[in-house]
């Protein structure tokens, strides 16, 4: 195996999907790549000065400006006639919430930048607070379950749809459990002449609470239940979709994670499980996941 462009010795948790995701992205992109990262787990686990796990040029500025910084990088590379991939790699908090304005600007200006969001569905670096990407009923430290709470009261923000609405020519969802698919999507995105966006389901052992050995299984179950459909949008139109032959019930995915434990204990939990199943069913119908 070739040497990874993300060196070992970084400080991410054992069982974290994020470094695996980054390695797959860099593996597909190759060394002729400049990475821009917002503040988050990725930044703090890979760049404690004077160390760095990055074997490609890498820049971090702030939490909410990675897409703007990447725009500036892309413009200068073009100006100097240098051909290199410019890839933003950031978590869901910076992508869907605080960095939305900056992302929107980068998308509509049409910079040739691939934006990869590793989506672990909450603010994990600060201690598992709810983000706009936190799914319905998930327990977080700011949407805790309690006597009168069943966890996060709102569904996930649909960031791929927001990217599509910006006429981003290539948008895709991917999963750490499907490495071949993820690599293919990164390569495809880098061929696009304008911006591209890939959102990768990336389980967080600390925030989701699961056994470290089950990370890939959990990510796979998200796809197999229909809760994380693997979809590509090319020029706004749904393209290739990963079919799910026999969708599994959402309970199989949820019961492996501590963040949903309350649903299996509380009297109203059953009703919530039905509503989560309805979200999966809607995805299955919308993207025709079953032939």
């Amino acid at each position: 195996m070739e040497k990874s462009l993300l060196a070992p010795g970084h400080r991410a948790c054992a069982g974290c999907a994020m470094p695996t995701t980054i390695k797959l992205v860099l593996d597909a992109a190759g060394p002729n790549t400049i990475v821009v990262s917002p503040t988050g787990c990725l930044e703090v686990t890979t760049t404690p000065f004077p160390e760095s796990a990055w074997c490609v040029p890498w820049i971090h500025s702030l939490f909410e400006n990675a897409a703007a910084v990447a725009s500036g990088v892309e413009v200068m590379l073009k100006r100097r006639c240098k051909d290199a991939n410019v890839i933003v790699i950031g978590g869901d908090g910076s992508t869907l919430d605080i960095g939305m304005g900056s992302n929107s600007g980068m998308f509509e200006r049409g910079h040739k930048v691939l934006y990869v969001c590793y989506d672990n569905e909450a603010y994990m670096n600060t201690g598992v607070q709810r983000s706009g990407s936190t799914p319905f009923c998930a327990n977080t430290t700011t949407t805790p379950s309690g006597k009168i709470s069943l966890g996060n009261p709102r569904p996930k923000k649909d960031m791929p749809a927001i990217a599509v609405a910006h006429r981003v020519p290539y948008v895709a969802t991917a999963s750490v459990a499907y490495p071949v698919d993820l690599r293919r999507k990164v390569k495809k995105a880098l061929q696009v002449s304008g911006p591209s966006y890939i959102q990768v389901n990336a389980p967080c052992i600390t925030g989701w609470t699961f056994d470290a050995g089950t990370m890939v299984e959990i990510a796979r179950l998200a796809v197999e239940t229909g809760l994380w459909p693997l979809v590509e949008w090319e020029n706004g139109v749904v393209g290739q979709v990963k079919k799910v032959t026999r969708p599994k019930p959402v309970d199989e995915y949820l019961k492996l994670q501590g963040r949903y434990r309350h649903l299996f204990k509380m009297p109203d939990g059953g009703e919530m499980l039905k509503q989560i199943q309805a979200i999966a069913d809607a995805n299955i119908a919308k993207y025709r996941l079953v032939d």
Partner: protein
Amino acid sequence: MMKGVASSASQGQSPKARGEKTTKTLGMKVVEGSYAVAHAVKCCRPDVISAYPITPQTHIVEHLSQMVANGEMDSEFLTVDSEFSALSVLVGSSACGGRCYSSTTSQGLALMYEVLYNVSGMRLPIVMNVANRALGAPLNIWNDQQDSIGARDVGWLQIYVEDVQEAVDATLQAYKIAEDPEIMTPTMVCMDGFILTHVYEPVKLLDQELASEFLPPFAPRSILDTADPKTFGAFADPSTYTEFRYLQFEAQNKALAKIERTAREFEETFGRFYGGLVDSYRADDAEIVIVTLGSVIGTIKDAIDSMRAEGKKVGLVKVRCYRPFPVAALREALKKASIIAVLEKDVSIGGEAGLLADMKAAFYNSSIHPPIIGFTAGLGGRDITINDIEKLVKKAEAAMKGIESEFEFLSLRTEIL
């Protein structure tokens, strides 16, 4: 009449420069301040310009956009979603080795606040014209200097200019100072909004050839380059963070000499000089010395001339460089003053005001410490008149016999309170 301060004997608007303004009009054009500054930016040949429109900065970036659109300047101009993104884009471009420019004011500078610290911490020598304006609430689009004075601790160098010509010349100087390998510190050239951005006055525009000679191409030691991968913007824990800040602090200290030297080099090439760190007017024998920054200096000079005619020993010291704060130059320039009256267009609500606090700090441990009193005026665009200056001087005269008020709002309209 005009007497030098700081390191040299004959500073101030040198006779050469004054002559140029009054008699040698050849080569001068009557242009809008914003156009003159945009023209100066063009002569600095920035790679990337990124800006978001906000009054009264708009004309500067409109002129630059037109110059790019006309093919008169070879720069990338990015229209962005906010001031926050405007400066963030430049973080990326500067880290790739590009010379970068932006301009903003007031709310826009406030929105940039987080990025301001980041740019200085990453030692990216971006230059920005701040078209000084008040901050809301209440909303107010007119001039004061609350915006940049409020940003005094963000790690940028700050130069305040008196007129359009100085804004032009300081913009070119700013890049030379900021990009010095020993300095590598972003720089704000602060010019009073509307008063200087929208005024039409005779200006000697920069000559491109001379400007290019004066300002060599930007060649940073470290850039984002796939041939030599480096990590930019790593996080620093308690064992190293302090030393990053110290190095910035040291670079600002080194900038004191660099700013002086650059002003002198500029004079050699272009024949104009405004003082390096500070400048003075009729201050050598003055008992009462007014200390201030920005465009109000013109009014103060007129007021001083008429008060001098009445026999009052009044003078002026202009703070051209506010960050780094030129303590030694100010102590030298003010060593004979019987009282110092600081006038500024900002207020530190709950404290006093920015320049006043720095002035008091500069003199407290000095062997000479004349009494220092402070005034805020001109907030939200209110004119500061000759009458106001005379009022200030009367208060300073009274304070020489005993200070009653260390800080006050000058010409406060008590009838509407």
